[in-house]
C-alpha cells in the first residue's frame, strides 16, 4: 500500500481517520487487485488479501479488516471492486456472519475474539448461525431457558437447552448464543452472550422442514456443551444488551440490502409482465404498477438508511424498512401467482433438501417465493414486534404494560 497505516493499538483505532479519501482508497483497491487478479485468484485468498489491506470494512480498525476510515467510503471500495471484477458481496449463507457476527464482535468483542473470528468470517471460511429462539421464547426472547452454568474448576461454561428455527445451523462453524446465567434475576438481567463452536461435543443439529418443503432452518439441541470463558462476549449478565445490538444489525441487514432498481422480486414481476402480454389484465396492471412504485420507495428508503448509517450505528429505524420489505415481497409474489393463473397452481420442487452455499434462488418459482416470503414477517422479529419497537423507541409512545420486568425469571409463570 502506498501510505502508512496508523499504528495498531493507538488511539486512532477508535477514531475515524479523516485522512482517508476516496482517491486513496481507490488506489488501495487497485493495489490489491493488481497483486491478486480476481479472475485467477481463489476467492478465499482474494478476500483474505482484501481483509489484510483493510478493505473489508473500511471503518473497522486496522488489523481487523479496516482502516478506521469514514464508513461512508465503503461504497467507494465496493464500486471499485465491482468494476475490477471481484467476486460479488453475495452473502447467502454468510448473512449472519457478515451482517450480525461482525458488527457485534466489533462493538462488544475483545481483541482476541476479533483477531480469531473476523478474518475467517470475512473470507467465508467460517459460516455463522444465530442461536436465539427457543420453543418457549420467540418474540419474548428474554424469556429463554437455555442454561449456561459456570464450571468453577475450569472456568468453562456448560450449556444445556434447546434452540429452534436456527437458520443454516447445519452449515455453521460458529453460533451466536444467548443463554441464561442468572435465573434468580429478572429475565433481561440474567442473560449472557457466547460464541459456540457448532462442532463441539453435545451440539446436535436436526433439520426442520419448512413450508417451502426444504429445510433452511433447524432445531439445535445443546447437551453439556462446554464453552471456554474466552468465548463469552460482553460481561456476564450483559447478554440482553449484546443481543439487542445483534438484532438491530439483523433488521438493517434484512431491510436495507443494497438493491438496484428492479432488483429482487420487483424485477421478476416486471419481467413477467413484459414477457407475457397474454397474461395481462387491467386490474392486475394497476397492482403491478403500484408494486413497482412501492418497491422503488422501499429501495430508496433502504438507500437513504444506508447513507445515514454510513455516519453512525444502526438505530431502530431499520425496523420500518424490514416491515415494508416483508409486506412488499409477500404482495409481489402473490401477485405473480395471480398473473400466472394456471401455471401458478403448480410448484417447482417439494424435495426435502437443505440449501447449499451455491444455491441460486433466482431460478426458483414464484410459488416458492410466495411461501418463503411468509417467513419474512416472522424471522428477525415479527412485524407486530417491530411495530412495537418503532412505536416505543422511535416515536416514544408509552410501553406495553408489563408484569414480568421485575420478577425473578425463575418465578415467572411458564
Amino acid at each position, binding site marked *: 500500500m502506498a501510505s502508512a497505516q496508523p499504528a495498531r493499538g493507538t488511539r486512532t483505532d477508535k477514531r475515524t481517520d479523516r485522512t482517508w479519501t476516496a482517491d486513496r482508497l481507490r488506489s488501495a483497491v487497485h493495489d490489491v487487485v493488481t497483486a491478486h487478479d480476481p479472475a485467477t485468484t481463489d476467492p478465499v485468498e482474494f478476500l483474505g488479501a482484501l481483509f489484510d489491506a483493510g478493505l473489508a470494512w473500511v471503518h473497522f480498525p486496522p488489523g481487523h479488516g479496516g482502516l478506521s476510515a469514514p464508513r461512508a467510503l465503503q*461504497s467507494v471500495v465496493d464500486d471499485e471492486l465491482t468494476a475490477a471484477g471481484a467476486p460479488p458481496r453475495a452473502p447467502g449463507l454468510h448473512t449472519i456472519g457478515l451482517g450480525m457476527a461482525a458488527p457485534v464482535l466489533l462493538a462488544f468483542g475483545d481483541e482476541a475474539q476479533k483477531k480469531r473470528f473476523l478474518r475467517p468470517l470475512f473470507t467465508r471460511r467460517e459460516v455463522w448461525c444465530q442461536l436465539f429462539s427457543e420453543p418457549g421464547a420467540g418474540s419474548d426472547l428474554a424469556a429463554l431457558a437455555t442454561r449456561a452454568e459456570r464450571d468453577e474448576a475450569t472456568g468453562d461454561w456448560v450449556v444445556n437447552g434447546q434452540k429452534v428455527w436456527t437458520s443454516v445451523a447445519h452449515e455453521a462453524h460458529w453460533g451466536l448464543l444467548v443463554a441464561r446465567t442468572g435465573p434468580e434475576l429478572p429475565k433481561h438481567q440474567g442473560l449472557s452472550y457466547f460464541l459456540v463452536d457448532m462442532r463441539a461435543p453435545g451440539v446436535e443439529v436436526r433439520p426442520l422442514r419448512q413450508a417451502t418443503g426444504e429445510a433452511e432452518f433447524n432445531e439445535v439441541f445443546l447437551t453439556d456443551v462446554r464453552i471456554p470463558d474466552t468465548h463469552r462476549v460482553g460481561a456476564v449478565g450483559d447478554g440482553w444488551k449484546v443481543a439487542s445490538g445483534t438484532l438491530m444489525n439483523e433488521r438493517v441487514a434484512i431491510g436495507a440490502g443494497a438493491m438496484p432498481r428492479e432488483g429482487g422480486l420487483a424485477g421478476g414481476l416486471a419481467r413477467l409482465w413484459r414477457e407475457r402480454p397474454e397474461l*395481462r389484465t*387491467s386490474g392486475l396492471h394497476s397492482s403491478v404498477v403500484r408494486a413497482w*412504485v412501492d418497491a422503488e*420507495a422501499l429501495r430508496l428508503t433502504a438507500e*437513504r438508511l444506508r447513507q445515514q448509517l454510513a455516519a453512525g450505528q444502526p438505530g431502530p429505524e431499520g425496523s420500518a424498512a424490514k416491515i415494508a420489505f416483508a409486506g412488499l415481497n409477500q404482495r409481489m409474489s402473490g401477485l405473480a401467482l395471480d398473473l400466472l393463473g394456471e401455471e401458478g397452481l403448480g410448484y417447482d420442487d417439494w424435495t426435502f433438501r437443505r440449501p447449499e452455499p451455491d444455491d441460486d434462488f433466482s431460478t426458483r418459482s414464484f410459488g416458492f417465493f410466495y411461501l418463503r416470503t411468509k417467513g419474512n414477517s416472522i424471522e428477525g422479529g415479527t412485524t407486530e414486534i417491530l411495530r*412495537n419497537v418503532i412505536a416505543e423507541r422511535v416515536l416514544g409512545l408509552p410501553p406495553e404494560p408489563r408484569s414480568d420486568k421485575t420478577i425473578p425469571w425463575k418465578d415467572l409463570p411458564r
Partner: protein
Amino acid sequence: MSTEPTVDLLYNEVEDELRLPLRALLADRCPAVALLARIESDEPYDTGLWRALGAELGVTGLSVPEEYGGAGAGWRETAVVLEELGRAVAPVPYLGSSVLVTAALMAADETRVLPEVAAGRRAAALAVPFSTSPGLPFPDAVRLSGSALSGTVTSVADALPARVLLVPATGAAGPGLYLVDLAAAGDTVTVTPRRSLDLTRPLADLTLRSAPAVPVALGNEAIRVLEVALTTGAALLASEQLGVAEWCLTTTVGYVRERHQFGRPVGSFQAVKHRLADLYGLVSQARAVARNAVAALDAGSPHTALEASLAQAFVSEAVVETAEAALQLHGGIGFTWEHPVHLYLKRAKSGALALGTADRHRSALALLVDLPPAA
C-alpha cells in the same frame, strides 16, 4: 432497467442551516390560531409572510442565478423550503410563483420579469388548472388573437396574490406561453376567488378579455417549457406533501401520548401504536422518494419525469393516509374547526389532486418503465 447512479438522499449542511430560521419564522408568523383566523378573513394569503420570505430570508428565488436576483442555490434547497411551508400549511404563493412560474421562466431564458419574481416583489401564477398533470396536451382554454389573450382558466392556484400571470394559449401559429402583467392589464383580466377544498391555498378562476400579453415561448418550445414547469412542480410538490405528512405524524404522536382514556395514554394501546408505526414507515419512505425526485431535478437528470411521477404516485397517497389517520386518532377534537388538523387534511387531499393524481402519475410511469397496460 438500467441501474440508477446513487443519489444523495440526505440533507446537507446548507439545507439544514436553511431550515432553522425558516421554521422559526413560520412558527412565529403563522401559528394555527392565526391560520384559522386568516382563512375567515378577506385576505386568505399572508402577504406579510410572503414579503418576509423574499426580503428577509431571500428564499423566494433560491433556484434562480444571482445575476437574476436569486440566491443561486438549487432545487434541493427549494425543496427544504417547501417541506417547511407544508409543515406550516403556510398561505403563501410559493409553489405557484417560486416553483411553477420560476421553473418556466428559467427554462425559457425569460429574464425580463425573473428578478422581480425571484425577489418575491411580484408574485406570479401559472394559468392552468391546479390539477393539470404533466404529459397532457397543451391547454387551449385561452386563445391568442393579435397580441391579446382571451379565455377562461379555472381553479388556478396562487392566482389571488399574483401580479404576473404566465398563460399558455393557442393561436393561429400554434401554442405559446405569454406573460400578462396584471397592473397593465387593467380590467381585461378578472380574478374570481373560488370556494376551494384547501383553505390555505385558495384557487381562483381567471377570465381574460383581450388582455395584453408578451410572448415568452412559442411552438414546440412553449410545449417544452410548460412541461418543464409542470414536471418541476410535481417533483417539488412531493416535498411540500412530505412536510404536511410530517406535521400530521408528529402532532398525532404528541397528542396520543398526552390524551388519557381507560386510565392510560391512548398511545399505549397497541392498535394505535401499530397504526402510527406504519405511518412512520410510510413517511420515511415518502421522504426518500421525495428526496430522490428533488435530486434528479437538481442534477438535471434525463429521468426527471420518471422520478417526479414516482414521487407523486407514492407521496400523494402517503400524505392523504397520514392526514386521514391524524384526524381519526385525534378523535372528536380532530373533527372540530378549531383544531388545525382539518387544514392539513384539506391541503393533503387537494395536493394529491394537484399536478396530476397518483393514478395519472402511475399511468405515466407505467409507460416510462415499460409496464404497458393490458391490451
